[in-house]
């Protein structure tokens, strides 16, 4: 089944050097909480809300890799999410929305995706 994607506009979030390598931060974009990560492979943005614990904490998880896939582990109950897709690697059927992210002129920008 294909995914209907409403494309919204790009928001400047912060300068790139405000992001520590291998660590996340939370940002408010159009009223939504987004978790933003900078790793050795690039920038990633996913929902900040941990769908298992229903708390807004994913930006505070530990970043790493699993079999080469860039990941973040929820700080509450340690489920691991694929940063590229938002899919939970530990619980079948669980995932978070991923968002678009890029760096332009030293500024990090995010565009929300609404998947349904």
């Amino acid at each position, binding site marked *: 089944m294909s995914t209907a994607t409403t494309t919204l506009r790009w928001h400047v*979030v912060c300068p790139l050097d405000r992001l520590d390598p291998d660590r996340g*931060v939370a940002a408010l974009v159009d009223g939504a*909480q987004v978790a933003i990560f900078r790793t050795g492979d690039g920038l990633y943005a996913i929902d900040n809300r941990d769908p298992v614990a229903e*708390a807004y904490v994913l930006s505070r998880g530990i970043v790493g*890799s699993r079999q080469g896939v860039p990941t973040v582990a929820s700080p509450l109950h340690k489920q691991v999410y694929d940063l590229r897709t938002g899919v939970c690697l530990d619980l079948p059927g669980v995932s978070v929305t991923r968002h678009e992210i890029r760096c332009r002129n030293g500024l990090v920008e995010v565009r929300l995706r609404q998947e349904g």
Partner: protein
Amino acid sequence: MTGGNVVVIGNGMVGQRFVDAVRSRDPQGRWRVTVLAEETRPAYDRVRLSAYFDGADADELNLHTPYDGVELRLGEPATGVDRTRRVVTTATGEHPYDVLVLATGSSAFVPPVAGTDLPGVFVYRTLDDLVAIREHARGRRTGAVIGGGLLGLEAANALRLLGLATRVVEFAPRLMPVQVDTAGGAMLRRYVEELGVACHLGMATTALRPGQDGAVGALELADGTLLDTDLVVVAAGIRPRDELARAVGLEVGPRGGVLVDDACRTSDERIYAVGECAAVQGTCYGLVAPGYAMAEVVADRLVGGEATFPGADTATKLKLLGVDVASFGDAHGTTPGCLDVTWTDPATRVYAKLVLSDDATTLLGGVLVGDASAYPTLRASVGGPLPAVPLALLAPEQAAGAAASALPASAQVCSCNAVTRGDVDAAIAAGCADVPALKACTRAGTSCGSCVPMLKQLLDAAGVVQSRALCEHFDVGRQELFDIVRVRDIRTFSRLIAEHGRGRGCDICKPVVASILASLGGGHILDGEQASLQDTNDHFLANLQRDGSYSVVPRIPGGEITPEKLIVIGKVARDFRLYTKITGGQRIDLFGARVDQLPQIWRRLVDAGFESGHAYGKALRTVKSCVGATWCRYGVQDAVGLAVALELRYRGLRAPHKIKSAVSGCARECAEARSKDFGIIATETGWNLYVGGNGGFRPRHADLFATDLSTEALITLIDRFLMYYVRTADRLQRTAAWIEAMEGGLAHLRSVIVDDSLGLCADLEAAMARHVTSYSDEWRDVLDDPDRLRRFTSFVNAPDVPDPSITFGTERGQPVPVGGRSPSPDGRQPVTLGLPEVRR
């Protein structure tokens, strides 16, 4: 007959087991049970009796469970039985029975020697005996034990623990004459004497003489020697208590004991006898396992079963003295034509003997002194073919491993829980891949633990590779990683993973490396790359709660706090609307802080003289204390002063897991020090140190490690203990599991950190000294550094906006979280009343 009245005479270990067995087999309650008990306390664990001198109290030894339909009459001994009317009489009444069970146990045998009735002469059988021994030992200096068997040596150790200079007098020419042969006895003697217990062997005691105060003062030996002693314990053997049975004409065994058949029935078919008072086909057993088996047999018979007593394993291992002694099977080689293989090594002080059948193919029994590591394999092999050549069997390690793999499926691997090799192999085939899984699945290794090495060998034999890899990024365990970091002087995770691992790390290896770097003095835990390794708790120096808010916990060393500081905490909590709770660790936790509030809260606390309590992170948490000698009328030392000093010394120490401690000012133990990773209890003359306890998932009491230490000696030992733990424990391994997993256990730990057997102590002390001098408060360090402070906002692009997902309701007048999900679906936390949570 499957119902009616059962009267049980005796509420000892076996009597109690019988009651448990009846209740579990007769859920409809067709049997009403009356238990007549001579002692005034309900059944307790006599096997662990000596633990009383290690601080265990009557509650801890308790074995009794109340049941419906069971009436326990304490302090009401049976005085007679009328077999025709079928009633048991006591001083206060009569109890009719349909079935009578004798479980009267044994009494200590006191040889006919003049003076055994003097005050200060005791036997070693009941809790009351031990209470009286402790009372009498108070303020006295010397003690003697008559009898050098298993029980006598256990009693001698108890007297040592009470601080008495102790000697043992044994009539036979060697110690443990029943279990050990001449050569083994000689080796054992050297170990015992090294513990400071003097041995007088081949020597009869002819009289006990009073001292000036009228209590016992000296022991007279057959050769006329007089030995001064302030206290005597007689442990010369036991006699089955068959007096009631004799009085009513039941048959008794040739050497005493109520004669029973293999259904445990006496010569009167309405009367059974179980435990130490019973002579099954003429043999009495002085061990608890055969007694338990008898109790099960009789319970089974009552519900119409056909169980019979299977015979008993009388293998024994000396406990408590820290000397490895084991004897099993036909240890003395009484089988006609049998052969011996012996091995004596005076250098390592190991003696071993195997008794083999006349064709040298079947193992019949053996004796081990000094190193009993081969015991589990050997005991399991008794009666079967030799699993390896005899000498290889005695050399432990690889050879024992090979031997284990040759065991037949019927060999009993764990005798405590009757688990055979076949059971273990089946569990492995069903997917158990490590020792904890095997323990959970088969119960093997969950009692005395002596078969755990064999479980490992069986896993090896089955080809299960027990990986020590930390995670997919590192092939080694925490300890090796620690050594690599230290020896190579690695300061960053990126270098470590580039040179010794792969990938980008994860939530398992990163915090481990963070902890290693921190304990090697890596600077502030939020500096540079280290920041990315920390768990959220360490990252925000506070404890993440389920709704995404944090708790703040100021350090209150030893639980001692001024009124001014209490007021500050109260004001901070009020101003930031925090939920406050006094916790089990004698701290005041403040809950419900948002990330962006943390620096403001810390500012107020730090200004008032507080520092971080390290309630986050794997580090030293609290050193609890009672009020001690300063206020308490029982206290013998300054518990608070010591707790404060220890907490300040070890604050901020990062470790494989959290560490908790406590100090009690006297043996009453109000601080519960024995449930801690290290606990201290004051004595009249110093401090006793306990290690390896915890109050966690599987509560465990700490073991007594060293006694009567000066404050200085105590701190040196704790320094070494903690550093050795920090360096060698596995990831998330608490001290209890660390010691359990250590080869050689507590004795090994003692040799490393007391006797310095590995030559590590100077290094460990220096490492601790570095930690102590380099400590600085992590909260203050953040407040002083704008770069670090920048992290404490809810949103990177909206620093002034509080996280809208964090909201509070009110319960019992305080804020409670509304967001976040609690583990149960309806949002309410179950109150489990200490029972495991039921998952649907």
